[in-house]
């Protein structure tokens, strides 16, 4: 009994800690055009798209990832939680891909608003924005 109470207390502490952590940084969500047939991707699939390791959705249709510039808080949050790469690691990774001609880095936008505008023009595109910036034009397919 004592053990169960202890476990409950511990779990509540962990839960409140993780809420606090989540509240610290603005959470981001991964989005596609609202008319896209894609409904859900996991973290690995999104990371693969943004690292150029795959270039299509699970149904085989082409995917076009769009980055935010590394000056945006969303960029840091996305790469911390999805690709798990620091700014330098990301640069190293892309310099390997680019200077061997194996891949090209995704195109970039400078803000949530620009991303929303761009996504509305092309259902193949996939991007990430602050959770608070989500509107009706997009569909959230991953909320890490």
């Amino acid at each position: 009994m004592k053990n169960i109470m202890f476990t409950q207390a511990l779990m509540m502490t962990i839960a409140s800690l993780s809420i606090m952590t989540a509240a610290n940084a603005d959470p981001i969500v991964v989005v596609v055009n609202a008319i896209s047939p894609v409904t859900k991707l996991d973290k690995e699939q999104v990371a693969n798209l943004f690292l150029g390791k795959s270039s299509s959705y699970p149904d085989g249709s082409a995917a076009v990832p769009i980055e935010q510039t590394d000056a945006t808080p969303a960029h840091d949050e996305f790469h911390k939680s999805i690709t798990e790469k620091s700014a330098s690691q990301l640069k190293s990774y892309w310099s390997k891909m680019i200077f061997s001609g194996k891949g090209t880095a995704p195109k970039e936008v400078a803000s949530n608003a620009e991303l929303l505008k761009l996504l509305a023009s092309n259902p193949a595109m996939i991007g990430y924005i602050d959770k608070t910036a989500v509107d009706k034009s997009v569909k959230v397919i991953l909320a890490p």
Partner: protein
Amino acid sequence: MLPNAYALDLGHDVTIKGFGTAGLVYSDNNQADFVASSRLNPRGAGRTENISGVVDSKLGMQMDWQATSRLSFTAQAVSKQDPNNSWVPELQWAFAKFKILPNLDIRAGRIRPAVYMLSDTLDVNYANTWVRPPTEFYNQAPITHMEGVDFLYRLQTGPVNWLLQPFYGNTQLPMTSHQTVTAKNLAGVNLVATINDFTFRAGYTYTNLSFNDPFFEGVVRPGMQSICQADYGDPVACTQLASLDPINKMASFASIGAGWDNGNYFLTGEFGKITTASLLHETLSGYISAGGRFGKFTPYATYSQTYNGSPTSFSGGSGPYGAYTNQIVTGILTYDSMDQNTKTLGLRYDLFSNIALKAQWDRIDTSTKNGQENTGYGIFHHTTSSFNNGGNSVNLFSTSVDFIF
């Protein structure tokens, strides 16, 4: 047109980008030059000058044209010390890439065969943690580019990301000591599997190699032919010449590599074996490297080694000219890279997200084959005879600024 952090956009889907290294290397041994590749770099740190700027410094520019969503063109020129001691930029890559399927690309033109795990970034030091890739291993197969094709096939099975890259081509490249190497029908495959923080890699390359060497052609070959053809000559000279003549000899390089990198710490290594039909340069080489990332600092340590398994002396000559046969064959056998290992400690500092500063200490040890003369120079270049007859220990201090733009 949207901007891209890794390139200057010239419009019309043309982008330009570059990379470079400014490096200084100090060697405490003035009897030999330390070079990044003894096949490709005629001069280095040590004997020519004790502090050298030519070992690692280079500048590369790349232009890409995305002609259609499936077709692109890439050209990359690199200026660095070449085998003729010139810095004229050379096209390292110049190819057309076509996306056959979303996960299958073909590239045709001038490409680099994916012989090593780090073949892609041999010039792009920014992309590597170290000042330079471990020399004992990366000295083994100096085919920097070829005219040919490769396929990049990517596949995902469960948690595993696969890259299958078969390649084929032909090339003729200048080497140091006025040599020219010709690789005919170079064919190989590069297979990479990535699972979370782990990378596994296997590669195999097979080719028909010819080394055109003025000294061999002007002195050694006619010398051995006359020993064999003379009255009371030594027929062994002819059979040895047939097996050692470096023209049209099969050579293969098989290698495996593995890495683990969780973002904070990494451990990586490669191991490779060269097999040739000419007896020369049957080598085993490998390295292991580990490090950690602490904010902008990345300290690392590496151990790297190469072992030449070919015979280094010959005593099978016969008849009155047998001694000459033995002397010449032994000379050829010792005209090759020898045993060497390096212990490395270094530190990378990421100054900005596109500039890294590095400092590295290498302790390089060469050893002889049972004390035999001319077998102690490892993979050093431009050596004195006292260095050739070593075992030698060399301390090397390197600093570099690596950048991409």
